[in-house]
């Protein structure tokens, strides 16, 4: 059975989805979804151990040897990313039960969990596959499920957000298909590792260049890199809380992984960064994202929207690390990917608790929330400290490595810019603190209790993890270093 883990990881949620739809009883469908998520988490944990001890694993779908058949290739990079995805999913599922019931009514719930499982399965499929076209197929499973989940929000703007995401996401996916098609026409293969070999032989032709450009633009749309981020704030703001948390913590992270995979594994580094001035372009966009999105975040009234813009800014940090394209930079990126997933996931869960009690996250309605829901607010603010990068939080560790990497590369002004943009994060987190603790509770405010423990507990697991990994950095750091070694070593 162990040999089949790479397939099972993706297949379990895939089979869980129709079962979830067939059982129809709300709690059972929730149970099916939870069990599938936890099983995937266990498998991805075992896979990571296996990769650490034995190196990368190849699994041949249908028993056809690649490049004839489709191959799953698990190495450090995707084992780590899948661990993040399944881990976040596992924490969120217990939360989902109450939260979904409150925000969502009771009637469509089993379809909701079906969509969630499909979304989950799509993300894992994208991360696990070693075949370029298979990546597109699973990307679309994930995207379609995401459009559905976003469209389930209560506000009517959720519908337009989903539509906007659908159009932009499909354009992105089509760009990726064009890129893959050009690569295929030039090399005759779809397997990523076979592609890497053959691209090296072909060298820098105009077709490869164009394919590369289309792939990067398409993936950037999916990961919401600065000028292409327009779909993200709306989608995160109006989606149900549990969906916002799951998406914010995982979807863009997998897109980052895909970018890493194509930049470093499929195209070799020399081609990527020497022929095209991509490092400068990415670095410039990343810096703009860090500043512009953080500034916009400061002026948001809706806290979910504020966090969404903050996500765009955080993606800027991750991409900045990639643009340095040395081992230290990629380490910082992967580390930040992990830390940001935990922090943002935790913060969106905390906001979900507030929505559960108050029905709104507009900053004007949250005066004195620190006294009304002390635990939730404490979680939210602790997460905010992580976003700023205060020492002893996970956010500090990854920003530290990012600054070091920039200096190592000789781009020390970038390190300075990272610090400066963190000040902007101080401003928007301070706005939350000010409203939550400094303002009096409005007199006509209705009595609210603290969120129920089934919501609070998962929130605290993620927030607690963000502190824990700020102090004991071994696990993510080792994984990040290994990943970076593997990715940057491929092209040399």
């Amino acid at each position, binding site marked *: 059975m162990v040999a089949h883990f790479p397939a099972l990881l993706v297949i379990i949620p895939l089979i869980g989805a129709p079962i979830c739809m067939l059982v129809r009883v709300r709690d059972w469908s929730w149970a099916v979804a939870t069990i599938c998520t936890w099983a995937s988490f266990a498998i991805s944990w075992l896979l990571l151990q296996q990769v650490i001890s034995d190196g990368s694993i190849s699994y041949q779908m249908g028993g056809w040897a690649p490049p004839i058949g489709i191959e799953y290739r698990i190495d450090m990079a995707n084992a780590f990313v899948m661990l993040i995805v399944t881990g976040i999913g596992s924490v969120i599922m217990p939360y989902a039960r109450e939260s979904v019931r409150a925000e969502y009514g009771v009637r469509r719930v089993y379809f909701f969990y079906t969509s969630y499982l*499909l979304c989950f399965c799509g993300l894992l499929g994208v991360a696990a596959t070693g075949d370029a*076209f298979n990546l597109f197929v699973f990307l679309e499973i994930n995207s379609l499920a995401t459009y559905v989940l976003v469209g389930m929000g209560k506000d009517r703007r959720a519908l337009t957000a989903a539509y906007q995401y659908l159009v932009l996401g499909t354009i992105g996916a089509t760009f990726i298909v064009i890129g893959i098609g050009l690569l295929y026409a030039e090399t005759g293969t779809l397997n990523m590792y076979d592609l890497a070999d053959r691209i090296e032989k072909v060298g820098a032709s105009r077709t490869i260049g164009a394919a590369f450009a289309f792939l990067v633009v398409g993936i950037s749309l999916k990961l919401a890199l600065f000028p292409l981020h327009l779909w993200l704030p709306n989608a995160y703001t109006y989606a149900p809380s549990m969906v916002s948390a799951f998406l914010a913590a995982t979807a863009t992270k997998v897109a980052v992984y895909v970018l890493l995979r194509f930049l470093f594994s499929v195209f070799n580094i020399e081609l990527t960064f020497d022929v095209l001035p991509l490092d400068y372009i990415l670095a410039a966009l990343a810096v703009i994202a860090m500043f512009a999105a953080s500034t916009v975040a400061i002026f948001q009234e809706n806290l979910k929207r504020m966090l969404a813009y903050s996500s765009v800014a955080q993606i800027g940090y991750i991409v900045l690390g990639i643009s340095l394209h040395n081992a230290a930079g990629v380490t910082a990126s992967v580390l930040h990917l992990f830390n940001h997933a935990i922090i943002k996931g935790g913060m969106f869960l905390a906001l979900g608790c507030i929505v559960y009690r108050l029905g709104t996250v507009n900053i004007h309605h949250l005066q004195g929330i620190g006294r009304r829901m002390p635990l939730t607010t404490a979680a939210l603010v602790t997460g905010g400290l992580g976003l700023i990068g205060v020492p002893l939080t996970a956010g500090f560790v990854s920003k530290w490595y990012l600054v070091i990497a920039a200096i190592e590369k000789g781009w020390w002004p970038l390190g300075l810019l990272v610090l400066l943009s963190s000040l902007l994060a101080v401003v928007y987190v301070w706005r939350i603190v000010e409203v939550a603790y400094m303002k009096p509770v409005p007199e006509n405010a209705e009595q609210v209790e603290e969120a129920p423990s089934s919501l609070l507990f998962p929130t605290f697991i993620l927030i607690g993890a963000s502190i824990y990994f700020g102090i004991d950095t071994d696990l993510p750091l080792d994984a990040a270093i290994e990943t970076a070694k593997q990715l940057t070593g491929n092209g040399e």
Partner: protein
Amino acid sequence: MAITVIAIVKIRNLFAVVMLGSIFSLLAAAMFVVLDAVDVAFTEASVGAGISTVLALGTLALTTDREKKPIHTKLVPLCVVFLTGAALIYGTLDLAPFGSKNAPVHTHVGPTYLAEAQEKTTVPNVVTAVLASYRGYDTLGEVTVIFTAGIGVILLLGNWRRERDSGDDQNA
């Protein structure tokens, strides 16, 4: 095909636009036949010209069939489109000429299917063999995509009130 597309850009009556879109699909299907892809042509004709059109017409019946705004050429999108098109044409310049036997597509991977598919799967239609066996996992993904779309449409448009009355969901 080019004329159809330009007409779609210009015409404001959405009914006509949808019908032209359907014609476009049929023309694409004809082109697939010319290019030896009979399976694809079959699918494109039934899906692009059939199902999609029926659905679009259904949507028109539920909404409206006039595009309100007068159409004027917009500069920014036009620039974006030209840039993308130029990049694509630039990309095709290094491709093997159309129909060439020596293109990498025809020397790597592809011929293996043609050479061994019938022997190993007993299916003479190589497209079916590759679809269901060699790349069967892709097809599983494809079925899942359709499944997702079905779930999504039920969730978005389903008649939930009537369903509760008929006791469809035990927990309702």
